[in-house]
């Protein structure tokens, strides 16, 4: 996350009344957290609502925060909970039924595609994002927590309330599918 005081120190300092610490913290995490939400809900207005809500919860929790784990794990855990609430409220119950579908992907190739098959990078990024939006929510979330939140497998498990093995499995399936999307000719 760059140099300067650690996120945890900044949050504790904010809990002690230093508003400047929060600003540093916010600037560090605003982009990744926003993209994490946006990629999940695919709607900027909803993403902004959720984004704002997550930060409001961070602000409200300032007095209770304890630096026993990474700040980012904590923030993304809040974001995960807000997403779950959103899915429930919007009737997107399929979120919870995606685990079975994952089993069908066991045999997909996991190797890197040869360099000559790659189209230009921009196109590849677009295809990757498109494939990402097609992933089951659990897998997409695991991938985004890794990419945007820079969380480890253990931290992904902690943030989403699942075991390390489950988090690892989700992440692996996501990677397999995304690689496959880049190999498939458009």
């Amino acid at each position: 996350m760059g140099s300067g005081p650690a996120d945890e120190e900044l949050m504790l300092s904010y809990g002690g009344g230093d508003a400047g610490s929060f600003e540093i913290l916010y600037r560090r995490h605003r982009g990744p957290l926003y993209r994490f939400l946006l990629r999940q809900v695919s709607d900027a207005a909803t993403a902004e609502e959720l984004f704002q809500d997550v930060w409001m919860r961070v602000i409200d929790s300032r007095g209770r925060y304890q630096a026993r784990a990474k700040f980012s794990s904590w923030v993304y855990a809040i974001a995960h909970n807000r997403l779950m609430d959103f899915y429930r409220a919007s009737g997107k119950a399929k979120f919870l039924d995606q685990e079975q579908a994952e089993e069908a992907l066991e045999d997909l190739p996991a190797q890197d595609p040869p360099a000559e098959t790659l189209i230009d990078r921009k196109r590849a990024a677009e295809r990757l994002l498109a494939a990402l939006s097609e992933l089951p929510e659990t897998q997409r979330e695991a991938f985004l927590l890794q990419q945007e939140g820079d969380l480890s497998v253990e931290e992904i498990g902690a943030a989403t309330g699942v075991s390390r093995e489950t988090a690892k499995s989700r992440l692996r399936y996501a990677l397999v599918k995304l690689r496959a999307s880049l190999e498939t000719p458009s």
Partner: protein
Amino acid sequence: MNGTRDNRLSRIYREGAWPEPSRQIDAAILSASRRAAREQHSYVKRWAPSFAIAATVVLTSALVLKVFHEQPEVVSPSVADKETGIRAMRPPPAAETRAEETKPAPAPAAQPASTPQGFSSTMDSAEAERLGRLQRDLDLKRSLPVSESPLPAPKAAPAEKAPALKKEASEPFQRRPDVPQTPRAQEQPANAPMSVFGATAPAQQSPPRTAAKPVLQLPSGREAAPPARPAPVQPQAVEAQRMEAPSPPAGAAAISGGLSTNALMVGRAASKPERTPLAWIEDIRKLMKEGKSEEAGGELAEFKKRYPDYVLPEDLR
């Protein structure tokens, strides 16, 4: 690349679009954070004196309670002193008293080391209260002669008097009505020191205190009674219980290791009865859908009041 990270995918992902939240949202969140920090400061400043007063009151109460609980140990010597005080109420001639004081006393008998603990282990609170009342009565009766006495309080009980005191103290408590008629009563100085709070009394009062133990044991007949002291409450344990009490939500239930606290915090935050802004907005939308526009308007106004910096969604602006 390892099993869970694909650098090539990461690179391609980062080459995609990098959308960011709007400046309006940034401003709203930062403004809310500053306001919260300010409120916290003013809250602390506003309540600091009250907290200080409350802490003082609690501390004082705790001290008073502590002294009250220790009173049985303290009352005992005073009772013994008061017995002597009662005897002394029959005003002896001042000259006689002085003569008594100058008499050589026999060497004090060795006191068992455990006796100074007094009655805490042999007396319950009711008994202590009864003795307290008795002591107060005696104080009242004794106050006049003491104040009128020209003699200063003796710095230390004469060594020769200790056995006599002990012997007297070991006599049955029921004999007190007859006490003034015993000749030994005249041996006691009229202004024998008396203190309810013996714990803070000077050291010279300790011999009567130790001697008084049998006096109180006899009427009670509860020598073997266990001390009726409440178990001390450990504040750390209470705090630990408080911290452990809330259960994490389903989403965070499986979190283990160092992250469990975070999960708990998240769970606690999630299980707060207060509506989240998002939930509130959803409720307002529901009201609008149900045609309750007036109610929705009221809710919206309240929402704006509660979250002035919150950027409302398009449909509610």
